[in-house]
């Protein structure tokens, strides 16, 4: 492998990792802080991608699509949370897995009825459709650099919000001890609903950022959900910092394993990495609670 190919593949790994981070951030927040396993996170990602593609098809505007997608996913998340999922916060994880798995099936079917089974597409504006020669001889797609930038921006904003603002403090308080936080005047149900909507919006953003690269189709949320769960578990449930580091790790490991190993081994590499990390750190790299 030549040095420039090595750099290009590292960049590919980091960029794939950033895309996984966008997807995992919301999942780990809801899972870690609300102690709620939301398998339907992949469906919210799908809703973001479809909302983006449909908005672009209707208005012709890429910018509008990027804005509409997280909003649509957040609204869908709010409806889901208040109508159904809220009732499962106190239940055990198996109940939560069952109800959110059912939600996946229902949302997939609803999307099929609304949009049909032919995949949709989202086109890039010409400014983002080209490529930039950041490595000599290996032009890199501009839009992938844009995904990198958006991912880093989201990571930084989340860090600031959770660690430096009053809202973030409420979130952390609600996670540590829901009853005490309530007694101290924090409106925990409201904070949780807002948190769930934020997680949904992040999934929607991930969906619309993936839409120009991937096929926008029914069921697109499931394969990425599996990767996002791996990231969440490696990073330590509930830790944004952990999700960030784990996403980059998974992206880079997956990229190099695919290139250097046989197909069967390459496909397993991230799961073997997960097993190895959990063997030494059963709570992941950066556990959020103790």
């Amino acid at each position, binding site marked *: 492998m030549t040095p420039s190919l090595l750099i290009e593949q590292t960049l590919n790994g980091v960029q794939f990792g950033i895309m996984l981070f966008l997807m995992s951030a919301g999942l780990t927040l809801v899972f870690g802080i609300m102690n709620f396993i939301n398998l339907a996170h992949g469906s919210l990602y799908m809703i973001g991608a479809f909302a983006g593609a449909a908005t672009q098809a209707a208005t012709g505007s890429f910018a509008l699509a990027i804005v509409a997608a997280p909003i649509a996913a957040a609204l869908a998340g709010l409806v889901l949370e208040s109508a159904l999922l809220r009732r499962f916060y106190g239940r055990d994880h198996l109940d939560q897995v069952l109800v959110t798995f059912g939600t996946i099936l229902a949302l997939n079917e609803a999307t099929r009825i609304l949009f049909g089974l032919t995949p949709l597409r989202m086109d890039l504006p010409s400014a983002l459709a080209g490529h930039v020669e950041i490595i000599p001889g290996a032009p890199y797609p501009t839009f992938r650099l844009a995904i990198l930038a958006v991912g880093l921006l989201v990571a930084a904003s989340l860090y600031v919000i959770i660690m430096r603002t009053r809202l973030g403090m409420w979130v952390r308080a609600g996670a540590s001890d829901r009853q005490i936080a309530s007694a101290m005047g924090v409106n925990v149900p409201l904070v949780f609903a807002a948190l769930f909507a934020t997680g949904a919006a992040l999934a929607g953003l991930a969906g619309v950022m993936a839409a120009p690269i991937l096929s926008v189709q029914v069921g697109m949320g499931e394969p990425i959900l599996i990767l996002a769960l791996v990231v969440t578990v490696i990073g330590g449930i509930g830790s944004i910092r952990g999700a960030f580091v784990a996403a980059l790790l998974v992206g880079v490991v997956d990229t190099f394993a*695919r290139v250097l190993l046989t197909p069967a081994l390459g496909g397993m590499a991230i799961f073997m990495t997960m097993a190895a990390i959990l063997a030494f750190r059963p709570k992941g790299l950066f556990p959020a609670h103790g």
Partner: protein
Amino acid sequence: MRHVLAPVFALGLLSGAAFGAEPVRIGFLSTFSGPSGQLGQELLDGFNLALDQNGRAIGGRPVELIQGDDQAKPDVGRQVAEKMVEQDKAQILTGVNFSNVMLAVARPVLDAGAFIVSSNAGASQFAGAQCNPHFFAASFQNDTASEAMGLYLQNKGVKKIYLLAPNYPAGKDFLAGFKRAYKGQIVGEVYTTFGQLDYAAEIAQVRAANPDGVYFFYPGGMGVNFVKQYDQAGLKKTIPLYGPSFSLDQTVLPAIGDAAVGAYASAFWAETFDNPQSKKFVADFEAKYHRIPSPNAAVAFDTARLLDAAARSIGGRIEDKPAFQKALENVKFESLRGNFRFNTNHYPIQDFYLTEIVKDAQGRPVMAVREKIDSDHKDAYVGQCKMPPAN
């Protein structure tokens, strides 16, 4: 009341048998749910269009269509197929799109005495050693589209090819078919995890290997992802993309968009075919379903027309199995594909074409025919088939 009506019913049944009005029961087993559900719908729409244009009749008898969903799972397909032949008394089974489902389904259906006329799945097993008097593939043998593209690149003198496919049986079959015909240098042969989303790493390796072309087989969403990302990496102009029509047909082209323009596909039928029956089919299909048909829909349409022609040639008496088998073997009908006939293993002998993805008058990507690659293309397995006598 019952006394009065009983003779009327009896008479009705009698006259039905006498005038061939007893329905022909056709089991249509395909994938209607999950990510591949689009394929089953495409096949069913093509099949239904032909039936509608024929007054919902096959061989002059009304059709009773029994629809079933195999969920892309062989075990589910087998259960549904068994119910179709045993309980619903289906006489003909069609619609199956996945070869692994077909492999699970064929034995119980054939043992129950029904015919299978495949409108899509073209497994090599039934083309070769396991060929069966009552099994017909109106579609293609799986390897043939890849053989055709290999043949084209071989004839054109393209020296270095890079191969990509998902790591599952059909992926390996398609690349094996390609290598059977292409004798140039293979500079890379990569099998990716089934369902992989991101291909940036593989595309970087392609660029580094600098081949004269890439032959890929990625069905469904995988193909959409791969072709879009290949185009975004700026490789399509320098290293052309070649694939079988299954990677570049109307089931995926609307989702790929302009990124597919300039890629090449080998095809036995394309939506731009210039024969009258094909033009009418595309126009009728678009009017009814508001989308351009894929080769899957075209083959399903052909399958219904073929069944009708064969059944009509024997006066609709498909219960006479040896006669129906003979009628199918020698069937004459106006195929959308133009040149079509069955080989001795009951798989097609048909022509293959090179198509290029271009935009039509409305800016939609379509497969445009560029040249004929091979006339009367036969599959590679026919020699292994010792067809048992008719029964």
